[in-house]
């Protein structure tokens, strides 16, 4: 599903980052681990086809992302990638349903209210469809953001530090939801984290993860403290 080989990325004027190779099957969970500044964000950006690598190859579901044009990359991302950012970034001006509708608009796909309703129902927040983000609790907001991530039934779901600001119980609940939702939609889950609780959770759950739990441990960069 995700296969990289001698992937390298370089910011202008900074020593290049070398990423270890990965080979993760469909439906698996990949934990992207590393300290702050070890290149987690950069690796996620590469996986989202937001930036091209300096060298190396990166294929997702058989497609070589490094050969994409910008237009192809945008179109690919719209249909194949779900993203759960660390701060959820629900648009404050829009209701829950409209926030999900935004994904259709961004992707240039005809608006599909039935799909929005189905996903909100699957995540148990259908009754919040007409609320504004400011009227949601933290847990509800996370469910809505996750609904948005899986709306297009993507092959890949990227979660960026999903437990960073949560206490143990909430973190466990969030991971449980993330895991079960990814499984339900058959998506390969990539979690960027430096939180040990995430690894603990998936060690415990590994039996239940189709394709298994994989870890990509990024080494500390020689010039850590520069841009990550």
């Amino acid at each position, binding site marked *: 599903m995700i296969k990289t080989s001698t992937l390298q990325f370089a910011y202008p004027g900074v020593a290049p980052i070398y990423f270890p190779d990965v080979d993760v099957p469909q439906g698996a969970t990949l934990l992207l681990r590393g300290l702050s500044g070890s290149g987690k964000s950069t690796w996620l*950006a590469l996986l989202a086809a937001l930036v091209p690598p300096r060298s190396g190859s990166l294929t997702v579901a058989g497609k070589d992302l490094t050969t994409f044009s910008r237009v192809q990359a945008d179109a690919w*991302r719209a*249909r194949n990638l779900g*993203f759960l950012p660390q701060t959820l970034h629900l648009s404050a001006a829009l209701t829950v349903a409209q926030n999900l509708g935004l994904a259709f*608009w961004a*992707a240039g796909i005809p*608006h599909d209210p039935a799909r929005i309703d189905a996903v909100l129902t699957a995540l148990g927040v259908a009754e919040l469809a007409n609320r504004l983000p400011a009227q949601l609790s933290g847990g509800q907001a996370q469910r809505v953001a996750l609904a948005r991530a899986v709306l297009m039934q993507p092959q890949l779901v990227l979660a960026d*530090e999903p437990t960073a600001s949560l206490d143990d119980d909430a973190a466990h609940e969030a991971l449980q939801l993330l895991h079960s939702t990814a499984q339900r939609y058959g998506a390969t889950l990539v979690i960027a984290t430096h939180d040990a609780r995430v690894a603990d959770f998936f060690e415990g759950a590994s039996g239940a993860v189709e394709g298994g739990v994989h870890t990509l441990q990024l080494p500390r960069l020689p010039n850590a403290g520069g841009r990550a």
Partner: protein
Amino acid sequence: MTVFSLAWRYVWSRPLSAVLNVLLLGLGLASITFLLLVASQLERAFQRDLAGIDVVVGAKGSPMQLILSGVLHLDVAPGNVPLAAVNALKNNPLVAEVIPISLGDNFQGYRIVGTSLAYPQLYGATLADGRMWDAPMQVVLGATVARKLELRAGHSFTGSHGLGAGGHMHAENPYTVIGVLAPSGSVLDRLILTDTASIWNVHEDHDEDHGDGHEGADHTTAQPHQDREVTMALVRYTTPLAAMRFPRWINTTTAMQAAAPALEVTRLLHMLGLGTDVLRAFAAMLLLTAGLSVFIALWNAVRERRADLALLRMLGAPPAKMAALLLTEALWLGLLASALGLLLGQLFMLALAYLLGLENSLMLGGVAWPAELLVVPALALGVSLLAALLPALGAYRSNVLELLQAR
């Protein structure tokens, strides 16, 4: 969800800023709408009142005064000219028609104009009631006069001396209303028309009775019959080429002057134009300020929504779509401001028309939508889209890595 509905929601997610921007832009546009309307109304009013009059012949003095008094009926006349001299004009082969105009009296502020039946015909006037005069001391009222003074055919009144209300009353020579004109939107609406002879009647009797001959420049004074005077003559040419020769001939060989209404009105509009330049500069400043305000609002919006925009990129929106979103927000502001500006401008215009109507001055008013008003939405969209260019570029370049790195 379309880019329009989305942009609309984002505009109103900051209601105070949206209202401020629409208001600023709208006020600038209202000033411009107002200026355009005044210019077009004045021009239309003048064109209507000129009604094919090629030249006005009257006493020497200011040519503009002659036009203002005899054609637009706004000013007093420079003086009188002998009837014989005016009649002599008819013999000139360049002259197709001569219409005498005699001013001097009013009723309740409405001018009593002594003239011939050719004068209402010049404006294509039709009767709403009664008939045209066929004898002295019969009057036909303009539509506005009849409505405001509540006069009908059969009523009678006495004029007073001068062109404003409150002069000496000619009580011994009452006029009889014999007809009322249908509204024409021209200067006729606010005039009282009668035969030229009526004016002579009133003032000759007046002089005989009182012997206090008040000779005013604006007055058709009493004279022995052979020395009768009129205030001026409206002249139509037989050929446009007459414009080259006829006025010069009048000005050099007679004691009268010739003034071309088209020329004088152009001069007048030009003089008014100098005044409207100040208003125009004011409107331009308002628009500039509004543009700056829209720019600042959108710039802040892009900064505040950096993460939102980056997320849209993550959801697959191409950069051009983000720029389009920002431009559409500006478009909404421009559209709302256009509507507000046009509405306010028309309201200002109606208020002005109402005030001028009360003062019985130039005919303005009615809601008109001259094609020049297309400038207003064009300006609005131009200003708002220009203000949105840089913010849109910012949205175009929104960096998704910042979103990923927000720790």
